């Protein structure tokens, strides 16, 4: 069975590549066109449900606009996907009416929260802003040391307590310090946690409440970091974190690999949470504002 299976796999792979190449090159739109499109979307982790929705919507538009050529269909598809992803805020992080702006960063384990925070801090520091970090991950071994190392590397301050302490207590101090020191931006790290752990989501709620109490109107952004390699589970992550606290934006990390991160299309479609930033590497300047057009281009680029 296994041998047979592997052989089959190789064969399909060849076929797969050929098919992808043909998707937009052949001229007419037929059933095969939609099969191939589904293959591309599923393979990019757009998710089964959203893929079905997208192909359905595309079919309708092509019919309405009486489009018959693949090249035109491609433009319509791109437009459709960009529309799905776009947000009025144009991926800019909200600023505070009076500084500090407080950003709370959340996500499951290992998605890239701490590194992303370092990159954000670096970017704001480059813009001449005064930045403070809060070492809100008191749980994972050496998480505080990790953020501290980054804070030195990018030249910003950091508020920490001891490992094992209460995260909301650190955050409480950090918000107060941010106000007292008149910094422009405070970014709060938190421990990675699975969205299925109710007690850990309660902890997030508490952190959120504490921030809001010390500084009404804050946090100005609550950002959920998703790993670009994540499959359908990204939907559950966004949904459950979003139920715990009002998540205002996504950060899609690790887009420098071969994963396309298509699950953000499903997340945006289902929860309405837009992508704001993308992570494209491990260095301090590997952070970019999200550009729906570029993202869609890369998603459909099947070389």
């Amino acid at each position, binding site marked *: 069975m296994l041998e047979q299976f592997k052989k*089959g796999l190789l064969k399909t792979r060849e076929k797969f590549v050929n098919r992808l190449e043909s998707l937009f090159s052949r001229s007419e739109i037929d059933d095969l066109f939609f099969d191939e499109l589904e293959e591309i979307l599923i393979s990019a*982790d757009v998710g089964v449900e959203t893929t079905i929705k997208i192909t359905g919507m595309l079919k309708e538009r092509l019919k309405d606009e009486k489009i018959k050529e693949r090249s035109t269909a491609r433009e319509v598809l791109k437009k459709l996907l960009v529309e799905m992803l776009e947000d009025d805020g144009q991926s800019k992080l909200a600023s505070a009416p009076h500084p500090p702006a407080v950003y709370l960063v959340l996500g499951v384990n290992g998605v890239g929260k701490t590194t992303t925070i370092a990159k954000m801090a670096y970017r704001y520091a480059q813009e001449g802003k005064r930045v403070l970090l809060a070492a809100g991950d008191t749980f994972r071994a050496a998480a505080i040391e990790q953020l501290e190392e980054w804070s030195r590397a990018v030249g910003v301050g950091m508020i920490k307590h001891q490992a094992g302490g209460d995260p909301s207590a650190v955050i409480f101090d950090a918000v107060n310090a941010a106000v007292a020191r008149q910094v422009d931006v405070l970014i709060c790290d938190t421990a990675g946690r699975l969205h299925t752990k109710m007690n850990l989501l309660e902890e997030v709620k508490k952190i959120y409440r504490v921030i809001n109490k010390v500084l009404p109107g804050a946090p100005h952004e609550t950002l959920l970091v998703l790993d670009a*390699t994540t499959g359908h589970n990204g939907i559950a992550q966004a949904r459950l974190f979003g139920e715990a606290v009002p998540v205002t934006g996504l950060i899609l990390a690790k887009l420098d*690999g071969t994963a396309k991160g298509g699950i953000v299309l499903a997340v945006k479609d289902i929860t309405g949470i837009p992508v704001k930033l993308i992570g494209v590497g491990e260095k301090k300047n590997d952070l970019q504002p999200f550009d729906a057009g570029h993202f869609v281009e890369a998603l459909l680029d099947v070389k």
Partner: protein
Amino acid sequence: MFGRLSEKLQETFRRLKRKGKLSEKDVDEALREVRLALLEADVNYRVVKNFTAVLKERAVGAEVFQSLTPGQQVVKIVHEELVKLMGETQSKLASADNPPRAVMLVGLQGSGKTTTAAKLARFLKSSGSKPLLVAADVYRPAAIEQLEILGKDLSIPVFSYGKDDPGKIASLALKHAAAEGNDYVILDTAGRLHVDEQLMDELARLKAGIKPVEILLVVDAMTGQDAVNVAQAFHEQLELSGIILTKLDGDTRGGAALSVKAVTNCPIKFVGLGEKIESFEPFHPDRMASRILGMGDVLSLIEKAQSVVDEEKSRALEKKMRSQTLTLEDFLEQLQQVKQMGPIEDLLEMMPGFQKAGKGLKNLSVDDKQIVQIEAIIKSMTREERQRPEIINSGRRKRIAAGSGTAVQDVNRLLKQFDQMKKLLKKVHSLEKGKTKKHKGLLPF
């Protein structure tokens, strides 16, 4: 999402069964549901295609046609083939002959290597080995400190040599292990992208230098379609010996397990099930198969139910459960059947839909002795009381307790349990309602 496949398949089977005989088209229909479920579980698209092709061959075969229950036969085949593909038996870690021997953990950034290194060390220690942990991630800030802290908590030695060359660190660690009498030397390497040539070369050199007994790829169970690319690249460049799946304590279906296995043919050896260092187990292919199919343990449910439950009755009961008109009489009847099938909570857990709503199941747990008692209590009720338990006031409770030779508390407990069960059903019901707007096989298969 959980249980969707089994529900769909059961629907299909019911229809198919009425026809009595299974045609190739019927098999296709059932397989379409299987395909969708596998894709939703994040099994790679290409892997799914090949898997269902193999399935079809078997399903269309005589095996199914001759079966009295073709539908259930299909599920069984799916499950069997999944298990087969994932490795039928558990695979152990290679033994450390001529110690010390190195075990390399490799993988993408954030997949969980450092925690897994500590978990594996603890696992080995508890089975009598003398592991040494080695901090060979010299890139991520504070990775060395992280491993040192974990080692200290476990009283397992950690070898570190600053941010030097990983190859040099590893060979020094092996010398150190030889001197200290350690058998396994577990290397925590830095996370890296499979397309980062420079860093992949570094791993290849590291491997050549220390000749590890195991090179284990650590894979996040939440990984989507890209898992095949990652596994393939690591395997091509390092010749992996096994896989460890992490973060399985969440609600991911974990289809990446199947993808990774399919492209590398390496056994999945362990799974990580939580942030606690003890949350680490040998891999069970059968459990993983059920999980990927999102069907709880529907197979054993089917088998059990087939042998004991009158199908008509159970269908009627299911309907009542879904419409929430369950009475204590039904409960009693169910109990009598259940008595022959095993603990009730197992049964509920096996039912699609309950996994998600079933968080409160612990309180519902009922053992055999209790079943006898419950039977006695329900039998001491009037018909009206059984149908409308809300009328059972304290006077009636006393009477029922006396009649059944139990205490009032026992009666109270039963009524509470029944109430909880109804609430649970309501929850399941609303869960199901929330997902009725389902796509109906619009994908081309």
